[in-house]
């Protein structure tokens, strides 16, 4: 956020806030979004121009007033040199927590430190796992965090390689017990969503598939895409 500019972003946010969902994931733009596909990568570059913490706070306030919980998606490579200042800003923006997709792969040795920094500020570090996260790392991260779990369906956002959804969900469920598991990365069809749900996912996160509607300022298409995807969730 804000992509492509504050005005357009806010008009689509208004559309979205009128619809049914629980958590709003707000991307903090950065220069090196390694685990995003080409679509989200291009939004990062543009959104950096319009981003400020003051503006983030305004957006979160609006969303909170509509009853949503709010989480940042932010790369550790963006703030690992200014953890205190950055997390203070996250907390002061009114966010409930953050997903840090490169923590375990690129900054593994800092996982305990970072989870402590979140805990101190009473914000949630949302553990981010993929099919490449080893079992013992998952078990350890569950101990270091509370709240829900974000699981990447695909190796990066907005792309689709073949996956066995049943085995993937069964594996993460067997490790996470009753913790809420939300799947994201590369989800763009009601069929995938209903498969995820059938095998035991608690929720899904979408992003890349909505970007083209924002880029063409197509509010109608945007709403119908969200409803189409919700068909898989709430059928």
């Amino acid at each position, binding site marked *: 956020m804000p992509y492509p500019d504050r005005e357009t972003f806010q008009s689509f946010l208004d559309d979205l806030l009128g619809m049914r969902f629980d958590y709003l994931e707000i991307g903090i733009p950065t220069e090196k979004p*390694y*685990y995003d*596909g*080409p679509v989200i*990568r291009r939004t990062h570059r543009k959104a950096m121009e319009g981003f400020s913490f003051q503006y983030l706070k305004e957006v979160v306030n609006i969303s909170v007033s509509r009853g949503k919980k709010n989480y940042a998606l932010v790369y550790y490579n963006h703030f690992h040199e200014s953890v205190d200042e950055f997390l203070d800003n996250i907390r002061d923006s009114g966010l409930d927590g953050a997903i840090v997709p490169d923590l*375990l*792969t*690129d900054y*593994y040795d800092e996982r305990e430190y970072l989870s402590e920094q979140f805990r101190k500020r009473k914000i949630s570090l949302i553990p981010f796992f*993929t*099919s*490449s*996260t*080893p*079992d*013992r*790392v998952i078990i350890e991260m569950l101990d270091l965090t509370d709240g829900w779990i974000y699981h990447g369906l*695909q*190796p*990066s956002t*907005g*792309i*689709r*390689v*073949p*996956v*066995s959804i049943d*085995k*993937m969900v069964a*594996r*993460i469920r067997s490790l996470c017990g009753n913790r809420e598991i939300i799947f994201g990365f590369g989800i763009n069809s009601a069929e995938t969503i209903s498969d995820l749900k059938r095998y035991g996912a608690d929720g899904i996160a979408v992003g890349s598939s909505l970007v083209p509607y924002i880029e063409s300022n197509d509010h109608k298409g945007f709403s119908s895409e969200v409803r189409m995807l919700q068909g898989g969730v709430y059928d």
Partner: protein
Amino acid sequence: MYSEQNVDIIPEKWYNIVPDLPEPLPPPRDHDPENSSIDLLNRILPKEVLRQEFTSSRYEQIPQEVIEQYMQIGRPTPLIRAKNLEKFLKFNGKIFFKYEGATVTGSHKINTALPQAYYAANEGVQEVVTETGAGQWGTATALAATLNGIKSTVFMVKVSYEQKPLRKKIMNLYGAQVYASPSNMTDFGKKILAKDPDHPGTLGIAISEAVQYSLDHDMRYLLGSVENCVITHQTVIGQETVKQLETIGEKADTLIGCVGGGSNFSGFTFPFIKTDAEMIATAASEVPKFSRGKYAYDMIDTAGILPELKMFSLGADFVPKSIYAGGLRYHGAAPALSLLIRKGRIKTDEVGESQSLEAFKIFSKTQGIVPAPESSHAIATAINYCRNPANQGKTVVINVSGHGLLDLSFVRD
């Protein structure tokens, strides 16, 4: 070589180490920010191969057809106690070697070529394409394709193409079309030839050409090493070794293998990862990826078409001295292997050509098996290891990844 009574030693499942690694495996990254090279894999690889590349499952069922093909090409391969070598070295422990040279193509490469060609044929693919350095991988691909009823094209690193005409003949015999790389068959090859018509070629260039050719002709590309799914397939080596050692009541103290891209070593050792066995990976001194390489994201292929991987690497444009062991010339090493080396679980060694030639001669003379020049590097490490008094009494297992019968020009009279 083919023994019906031993077929239950062939495992029913391949083992994927990723869920058991000490830290998350760094995921592949796009080289070009404007495009997704991960997405491009959908157009390059058979679907099932791609699914296995990113799976979270610890085990993958081996299709019954592939198990039957494994039996046809000589699996299970023998585990042999090298008593003559023990005597020669005055070693009072035990030396075993797992002999992958006993497969019909003469190396471990067939273990992954078969399933990849099987999946490609199953998905209706008519032709597969790949690269080869020393020739073993190309030979394996050519046979796997023909056994699964499809065609194959192989880009062979030019220096090997010229040094090893017999390899090309075998590939042709199996029905493969073979080109020396850099070639005029792809834009990338042409670009390199324009700059240097006598370029000896590298594996990185040959991979680039094969991938480009598969995209240009809507074929599927077979992966020879480095990628996870290849290592997963290669775990038939280590799983058989585990069962064979159990059968004779032995326990491995030390496992030694050579590393080009890392697939024979990883396939051999990963099934032992939960034991306390010491593991030593040997690279060629002329390709010092462990001592001089950087552990960082780098390109798999010189053209940067495939995603980048985090691994020990000398750089994708690294052109090694032209050593005989073509299979060890690759600039990088598989990410899972690199991670385990980085964490200290796997140790490394680097052996030069003269030392490996010495090991080649000792092994030929004592055991009668002419090892591949690549495998001779692992044997050299094992010989040094067994000569160290501190290691007396240990049980050492070497993976002899291939035979060297087509590499005898390695030995100067």
